[in-house]
Each structure stands twice: as C-alpha cells, then as structure tokens.
C-alpha cells in the first residue's frame, strides 16, 4: 500500500537559512507519528509544505500521492491545524466552522457534530475572544475534523493544554488512529507525545536525525520500564513470551528493556498479573531526545 504522507528530499531555504534540509520520510496508514525536534528545527516549515501553505525550495511533499494543493477537496481527506490561534476574535466558534464548512460543501449538521465531538457545543455561539487556549485548541481540531479526514496533521497540539486536555487529546488521537486513520503530530517535548505516538521522526536543524518506532528508540538507549507486580515470576514468563528482555530486581520489581509502558501493561493484563507500579525509568526518553538533537548541532 502506498504511503499516506511522503517527503522526498524536502528542502526549504529562507534567504541564507536552510530551514529544512533534504528531508525524506514516509508515513503509513493507521499510524500515529510524532514529529519531534527542538524549537526552530524546521517542524512547522515542514508541515506547512506538506499541506501546501508553503512551497518547497526543492524536493516535494506528497499526501495521498499528490501535492496537497493539487488534490481536489483535500479538506475532505486531510485535517490540519497549523496554529492554535487562527480565529477572528469577534466571530463565534460555530461561525468559524460554518465558513470553512461552506467552502467545501460540508453541511451545518456536521458542524454541530464536530462541536459536540470536541465538547464545545455550549460555547459554540460565543465569540472566540472569550475562549481559553484549551477551547481554541479544540476548536482548531474541530475545524480539521469537519471533512471527516483520514489523516490529521497537528502542529504542537498539546501546547498550552492542561493535563486533562492533554489526556483528552491523547485518547481522541488513539481512537482516531484505531479506525485506520493516520496522525502526524509535532512537538518540541518528547515526553508530551511519548504516550501517544508509535513512531517518531526526530529532526534537528532541518535534518532528519532518526526515524524509528518509539519502542526501538527506547530499547536502543537501554531505557527500562520498572514494573512492580503481585507475581513477578509469572509476569517475567509472560514478558519473555512476548519477546521482551527483563531483569529481576527483588522486592517484586522487574526492569523491562526495549518496551513502552503500554506494552508492558498490556502484557501484564493479558497474563492476569496485577500491576502495582509501572514507570518509565528516569527521563530516559527525554535524555535520548536531547542527546540526539544536541549531537547534530555539534556536528553542523
């Protein structure tokens, strides 16, 4: 099956600055990918080229095998949020959605639907200037969902969200992806998306540093999941059967290598072992991230 999103030697130069440098990657359907890198790494520029807001200096970006701007009615297949604040403050949330829906022939009933989906139905007729940042984030997401897309492209969607909002977003994206849909979300904080994404693309200074699954990344640097359970022996057997390496550490604690906490939790559940503690050890993921991005900065 063809990739949903393809970047081919994507390059963008602003004057003398190379914002995106020969970036190539591909996203498969049904995956959630985190697009990570420090601020100024070129994430937003890349996303803008993906959805046709900016044109590449060289290379190309394809969605569903064609440049975004060449798709007929792309908003019916791709939902994108590039800024959390793209609203006229004097316009109601509902009218914001209606003006976009009108342009693609989506009926008002769908506007009501997405407003309910993002839990904004009560605020829909109020002017956006009275909305909190979290509400604006959700309104932006509602706009992206108007056309019932198969692909969501979100730039820093967790920015400014409170923990409850982050959890809501995570649950939403997981259920969206579980229907076979594809998600690309950017963030400058790996920890923010580590519980949501399956794959990561890390860029620094406009270049791809690593493309990998999150668990491979975790395994690669030896990050471990610490799990305390009622029956460590039984859990260890179950984890071994799931091809996961473990080290016992007494006091009913196991360290699991090369896995995400989700994976370990799932295995424990399937094995019927009660888990008392499940922790991704230290800030290992964040350390990897810093290490990887710092490394290329030193290189260039």
């Amino acid at each position, binding site marked *: 099956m063809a990739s949903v999103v393809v970047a081919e030697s994507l390059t963008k130069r602003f004057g003398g600055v190379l914002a995106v440098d020969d970036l190539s990657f591909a996203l498969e359907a049904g995956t959630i990918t985190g697009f990570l890198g420090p601020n100024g790494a070129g994430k937003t520029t890349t996303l*803008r080229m993906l959805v046709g807001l900016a044109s590449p200096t060289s290379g190309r970006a394809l969605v569903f095998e064609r440049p975004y701007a060449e798709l007929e009615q792309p908003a019916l297949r791709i939902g994108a949020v*590039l*800024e959390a604040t793209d*609203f*006229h403050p004097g316009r109601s949330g509902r009218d914001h959605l209606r003006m976009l829906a009108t*342009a693609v022939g989506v009926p008002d009933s769908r506007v009501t639907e997405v407003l309910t989906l993002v839990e904004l139905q009560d605020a829909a007729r109020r002017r956006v200037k009275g909305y909190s940042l979290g509400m604006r984030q959700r309104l932006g997401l509602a706009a992206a969902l108007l056309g019932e897309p198969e692909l969501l492209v979100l730039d820093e969607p967790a920015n400014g969200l409170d923990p409850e909002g982050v959890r809501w977003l995570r649950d939403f994206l997981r259920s969206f992806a579980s229907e076979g849909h594809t998600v690309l979300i950017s963030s400058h904080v790996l920890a923010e998306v580590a519980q949501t994404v399956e794959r990561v693309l890390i860029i620094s200074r406009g270049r791809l540093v690593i493309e990998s699954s999150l668990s491979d990344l975790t395994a690669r640097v030896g990050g471990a999941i610490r799990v305390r359970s009622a029956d460590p022996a039984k859990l260890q057997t179950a984890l071994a059967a799931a091809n996961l390496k473990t080290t016992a550490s007494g006091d009913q604690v196991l360290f699991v290598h090369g896995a995400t906490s989700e994976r370990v939790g799932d295995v424990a559940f399937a094995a019927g072992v009660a888990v008392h503690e499940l922790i991704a050890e230290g800030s290992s993921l964040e350390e990897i991230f810093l290490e990887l991005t710092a490394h290329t900065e030193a290189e260039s």
Partner: protein
Amino acid sequence: MIRQIKAELLKIRSTRTTVGLLLGMIALILLFTLLTGLLSSVLSLSTTENQRQFLSLADLAGVFSALAGVMLIASEYRYGTMRPTILFTPHRSRVLAAKVVAGVLAGIAFSVVGEVIGWGLGYAIISGRGIPFALSGGDSVQLLLGGVGSVALWGAIGVGLGAVLRNQVSAVITLLAWAFVVSPLLFGLVPSVGRFMPTYAGDGLIGLTTRHLLPAVAGGFVLVGWTALLAAAGIALTARRDVT
C-alpha cells in the same frame, strides 16, 4: 466557486466589522449631506452641477466599501484565518476571485444604503428649501447607477489592495492616502494624469462636469481597469507567496 463566494459572504456577515463600517458610512453621509444642504445658499444649490455634487455625497460609501474589501483579506492575514481558508480551498486564485466577487457584492449593498440615505435626505433638503430639482431623468439615472457601480468596484479595489499589502494597517493607510491625499494633489497639479485616478474616474462616470474630468464612458473603463489591475495583482501574488 459558488461555495467560496458563499463562504466569503458568511465571513462578512459573521463579525461586527461590516456593521461598524456601515454605521460609520451612514453617519458620514448624513453629516456631509446635512452640512452641505443647510450651509449652501439657495442660489448655489439651484444649479444642476451643484445639485449633482450634493447628491453624489452618497458615494462616500465608496471609502467604506473599499475598507470592507481590505478587511475581507487583511483581517484573514491578521488573525491567521488565511491558513484554514487556504487549507480548505488550496486553489488560491479561487479564494481570491471569490473575495473579489464578495467585495463587489458588499460594495453594492453599501452603495444602495448610501444612495437611499444620501438621496433621501438630499432631496428632502432641496425640496424643503423650495429649490426646484434641476437634474433631468437621464442625469439622475447616471448619477445613481454610476454611484452604485463605482462604490461596488471600490469593494473589489479594496480586496486587491489588501491582497497585495496583506498588512491591515498598511492597506488602510495606503487606501486613504491614495484616495484623499495623492489623488487630489495629482489632480490639482497634473490634472491630465490625476483624472485617471479611480476617485476622479468615478467622478467622470457619475457625470460630474468639473474641468479636466474624463467623460463618463472613459471614466467607467478606467475604474474597471484599476479594479482588474489590483485584483489581478492580488490574485497573482497570493498564488505565489507562502502563507506563514
């Protein structure tokens, strides 16, 4: 394209900007018509040309129509809604063309309100002061239709200017300086050039007979030319530039 035009009209209706501009326009036309009508002598308000000038105060609507046109695009850049707009309609020339059409439609609405108020009050003052109405039927039709046409085109000129400059403040200042400073200066100093400015082309179109003005048909063509030029520049630049 119909969808995009509908969307643009919804944008115009869903903020208070348009209502504000409309109220400002009504106040200004009322004020100027009232002052001119009451402060002019009976003798001066009796000539055909002066009555024409007096009733053409309704065309002050053109400024507001142009401002509405500027807002139609500059506010999208200001508040970032240009991003979702283009995501939903990546054919940017389609977006811009829809805005030009919406600008013209808004301009027609502005001009109808302006003409009703300007003519209503103006005619009441003329007849109230016992002055005979001096315009022929043909003159009146030209004044009215020319007014509606030029105010409508100003809406599109505003869209074009807004699309070229993008920044709301720059576009508004440029528009006002062009209409109220540069054009009058040019017309005063070099009338053979100044008469090609859109404001003076419009004056020719509605039948004013001030010396040096273009004849009506030529004035109309020049005004349409300005509109086409700015709209085309706006469309071409928007298609090329990144939306950041």
